[in-house]
């Protein structure tokens, strides 16, 4: 559980491009098949393109409070 919690970038009150940078840095630490989450108040289309180019999978869920939870698979 602790390890899972460490794998979350909460970018909701970060100034761009910090969420993008923090996500890419965290992705670098993951093993293939492991997952991380990015929390944002917008859908990160620029990030999606980079993830696609790098062969990562992702799924996105919009929560009631307006948070987009992006689960990224390394």
């Amino acid at each position, binding site marked *: 559980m602790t390890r899972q919690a460490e794998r979350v970038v909460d970018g909701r009150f970060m*100034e761009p*491009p910090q969420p993008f940078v923090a996500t890419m840095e965290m992705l670098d630490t993951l093993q293939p098949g492991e997952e991380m989450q990015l929390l944002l108040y917008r*859908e990160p289309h*620029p990030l999606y393109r980079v993830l696609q180019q790098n062969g990562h999978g992702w799924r996105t869920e919009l929560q009631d409070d307006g*948070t987009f939870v992006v689960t990224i698979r390394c």
Partner: protein
Amino acid sequence: MQALLSYDQSPPLSAPLRFFLTAPLFLVLAGALGVLEGEALFASRWTPAALAATHLVTAGFMLQIMVGALIQILPVLAGANLARPRLIAGIVHPGLALGALALALGFLQSAPGWLHAAGVLLGGSLTVFIGAAGLAIFRVPSTSPSIRGLKLSVIGLAVTVASGLFMLLALAGGWAVPLMPLADLHAAWGLGGWAGILLAAVAYVVVPMFQLTPGYPAKPAWRFPLLLMAALLLWSLAWAVSAEALQRLAQAALAVGGLLFVGQTMKLQAARRRARPDSTFRYWQGALYASLLALLMLLASAVHPPLAGVPAWMGVFGVLILLAGLSAFIIGMLYKIVPFLLWLHLQPLARPGKPVPPMNKLLADKDGLGQWRLYLAALLLAVAAAIRPDWLAVPAGLCLMATAGWLWWNLAAGTRNYRRARLTAVSA
């Protein structure tokens, strides 16, 4: 900001910038009309001067910036790629700018030739834009409230353009058709279906991003564009069957929808984590209060229609919704978008130890704040001029000319700073 606007597929700088640099000149012209036409501008919304000024602001200023901004941000707001942005901008920009000028001249001189020219220029260029933007946005799934809003706003623009073209043909050809109810419907689609829904779609992303606020709650954000669209369809039905009560119901629904959005945005701004108010925040704050007043007036006149006949009612409403509301939201956005774009397009020239100038050096926020204060003065004078045009139309017009000129100067100075930095970096 980088996440919003940058990206490997960023269109060339000239594609959005050409719209941004010509648009403020139309606000200068609207101010000049206030100086030259004085009382006629506020006598009725149907005077040639009032029609010309309204369209200098809506088609000349607001529409140009919204189109230029969409060309830039569609890929990052929705993952939708506008094909050949330089070509699209090269076609749409001159058509829009010249079309808006021809439209204003056509209204002022009641000249069928100018009205026909406006129809060809605006109709042609906007058809190209709607086609290109529609192709891009309708290909992506509606995975967020913003994307749903963008799709509906493009439909809103299409209805606005179609109804506007019909009225142009009717005016130029002297057709015996009642235009006033259709003009109301055209304005409702333009301000609600296009500008209002687009504003919300963009705000869902930029308000949390620019002001570091919480996000818009998901359910209302999904429903707001649909509510506005349903109200507009109801209004259209009311127009088609000439049902006044139905039209008033639609008008009230539009006003309530708008008020809910404004209230939600005010609530988010109150919870912002960015302490220092910058020019964008000031513009949005002013625009929210003005929109609140304008939408309350819209609601009041839906409930009690004789209010719309009260002297100065429509003049005050027009100033509040167009200049103090929608235009102010747009200018606030410009002060974020333009310095970032200039900075972004300098990035390839950055070298180790020789970074490019920061955004605030390219377009200083203090210049935007100064321009905002004069804009606020122009707004207060314009509201007062709607009540006493004989005294205040000329000062209000002069003040609007000055602040719009200052806006242009700020944007042009940013562009000059960009060119200078580019030359310095290339020659180093």
